[in-house]
């Protein structure tokens, strides 16, 4: 997907005025956060499991080269193949070559964020191979020709009415001419339309929540079972995964699985958690004849040695999205790339570059909720702060931002001038706010005053008040 993160401000402005989107975002905030809180409360060991999850991933990252080699060996031992790809382009081409090797005409896809990251669908389509998304959310946004707006619920920004319209428009060619209004019916129709597609597909492509070094397995977690149909019915199964998905053992996977579903949807376990190892065995009556893992770096190995290394612990649960006041206001599309929310604000600049994504680390109030709920205890706010510094250092911010930051730095280092300026500003604002105590329009703060009043300060600075009360 071509990033549009540069337009974050414009995107966000539009999102704030989109009433349907605002309703959808309210649902996210309410549903996910309450369910997660309940799930966490029901597992007394949750905090200790978080610590262990962090330790497992840190250990893997320290020895990533070795675990990847062990993983690859074990995939091959089980009859599969691993394809190492440095860039998105390498990975796309590899998937295409694999599809061509079995003369594939259509592929079914389970939800894969890496597939989005490398823009696989348009690429395959341009080569005459039809990609069919099977996760209901992904299917909906494929029909709408939109990117996902949330890593767990790609279509949560769509209302039921919008889904009804999309289905009516696109299912006409299957002879479905009635506009459905009940959710139950919509789910049923998607099931009916997609079932033959699963059976007809030549290749099934899934992502992986984990790759297990010990056994050479890939693990997917879904509620719909679409990923399982995708990886079972075609003659070839391709797993798309990035390097850092590795965990050492089945036991380590169990620990992370306990964290994942609870953090994501508040379930103890998602409906389906499936460990796949290699292709169909002798005697197996079903399953794919070939099993391939396309292993993508796309800049991650470099991150290992950077200040952003901890983001590689991310298990893509979406909890940080669900608890973020900025995400809850603007939704996922505003971020302009595959990954949104706090996690996207850290990862996107690392992959598409800070020049493109310099707005994202600013899309934070630094309230810290993301870090509080992140099962992998990733210090998201401090990494966003780090990106801000990086953006400044690399000249990625605007002239006005630079001047403002310079001016602030100058002032903050000169306490006497600082106090004088603060005093001036405070009394000016207090004067502007008379008689209501509110300011309706302020030249340098139109971003704020365009939509709401700015409360006027008391007129005297804190230090002045402090001194006046004799507390020096």
């Amino acid at each position: 997907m071509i990033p549009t993160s540069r337009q974050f401000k414009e995107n966000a402005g539009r999102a704030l005025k989109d009433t349907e989107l605002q309703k959808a975002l309210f649902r996210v905030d309410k549903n996910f956060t309450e369910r997660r809180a309940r799930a966490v409360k029901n597992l007394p060991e949750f905090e200790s499991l978080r610590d262990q999850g962090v330790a497992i991933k840190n250990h893997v990252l320290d020895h990533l080269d070795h675990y990847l080699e062990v993983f690859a060996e074990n995939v091959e031992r089980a009859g599969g193949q691993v394809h190492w790809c440095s860039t998105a382009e390498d990975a796309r081409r590899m998937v295409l070559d694999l599809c061509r090797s079995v003369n594939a005409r259509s592929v079914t896809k389970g939800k894969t964020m890496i597939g989005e990251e490398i823009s696989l669908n348009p690429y395959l389509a341009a080569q005459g191979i039809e990609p069919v998304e099977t996760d209901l959310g992904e299917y909906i946004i494929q029909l709408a020709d939109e990117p996902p707006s949330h890593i767990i619920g790609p279509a949560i920004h769509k209302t039921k009415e919008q889904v009804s319209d999309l289905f009516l428009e696109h299912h006409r060619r299957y002879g479905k001419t009635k506009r459905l209004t009940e959710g139950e019916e919509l789910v049923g129709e998607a099931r009916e339309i997609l079932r033959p597609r699963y059976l007809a597909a030549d290749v099934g492509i899934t992502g992986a929540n984990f790759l297990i070094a010990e056994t050479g397995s890939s693990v997917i977690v879904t509620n719909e079972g679409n990923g399982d149909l995708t990886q079972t019915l075609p003659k070839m199964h391709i797993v798309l995964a990035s390097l850092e998905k590795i965990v050492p053992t089945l036991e380590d996977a169990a620990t992370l699985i306990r964290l994942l579903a609870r953090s994501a949807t508040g379930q103890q376990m998602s409906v389906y958690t499936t460990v796949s190892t290699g292709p169909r065995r002798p005697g197996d009556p079903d399953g794919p004849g070939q099993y391939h893992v396309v292993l993508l770096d796309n800049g991650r190995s470099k991150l290992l040695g950077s200040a952003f290394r901890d983001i590689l612990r991310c298990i893509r649960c979406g909890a940080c999205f669900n608890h973020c006041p900025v995400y809850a206001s603007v939704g996922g599309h505003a971020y302009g790339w595959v990954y949104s929310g706090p996690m996207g604000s850290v990862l996107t600049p690392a992959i598409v570059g800070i020049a493109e994504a310099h707005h994202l680390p600013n899309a934070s109030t630094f309230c810290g909720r993301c870090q509080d709920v992140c099962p992998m205890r990733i210090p998201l706010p401090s990494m966003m702060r780090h990106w801000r510094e990086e953006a400044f250092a690399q000249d990625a911010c605007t002239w006005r931002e630079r001047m403002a930051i310079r001016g602030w730095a100058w002032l903050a280092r000169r306490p006497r001038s600082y106090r004088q300026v603060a005093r001036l500003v405070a009394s000016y604002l207090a004067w502007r706010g008379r008689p209501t105590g509110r300011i309706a329009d302020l030249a340098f703060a139109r971003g704020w005053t365009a939509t709401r009043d700015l409360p006027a300060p008391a007129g005297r600075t804190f230090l002045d008040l402090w001194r006046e009360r004799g507390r020096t």
Partner: protein
Amino acid sequence: MTRDAILVSIRDALGRGPLGAEARDLVSEHIRRHARNLVPDRGNVDADTKVALFSRQIQETHATLEYVATTDDVPGAITRYLSGKNLPAKVVLAPALAKLPWNEQPLLETKVGATRGEDAVAVTGAFAAIAETGTLLLTSGAESPQTLHLLPEHHVVVVRRDQVVGSMEDCWDRLRAQGPLPRTAMFVSGPSSTADIELTHYLGAHGPRRLHVIVVDR
């Protein structure tokens, strides 16, 4: 080779060369020992409590459940399930269950083997069941086609009491005791569902719409 380039890039970032023999051994030992991490206490209970815990929790995920005394009672339970749901008396069986006394149900039509979606009701066994979370473990293999676990609208799973374990870790132990992992080991907690439309929960997204569990006492 891309593989080497990636490995070198990782090592550069980590500021070291390839792991020395000693470090490699340590890491390999971590895999060989595959020690358990913290396992929640909840599943650490006696056998009867495990069965009760499993039963309660899987029903909370919208599955239904019943108990029968012996495996010989399973065909009768299936007939009752079908007529209770107004379904045609026709099922596809996992080969593992083919030896049950199906002929005692003369009106029930059975076939054995994998499916391509033409069957409405599948009856299969399980490899294990987990008390901690109310989860079934279904493995693929000659005796248990994976398509039966996914394509039919109704999936009936027969579990013996002694298959109910405490945790996922207990499942790993049992799987390892069998040899290499089967092609798929699928943990199932309830019927297929989705919340992709307005975050409302609907059953029967792509997999089975109904999941029925029969727990066999002996």
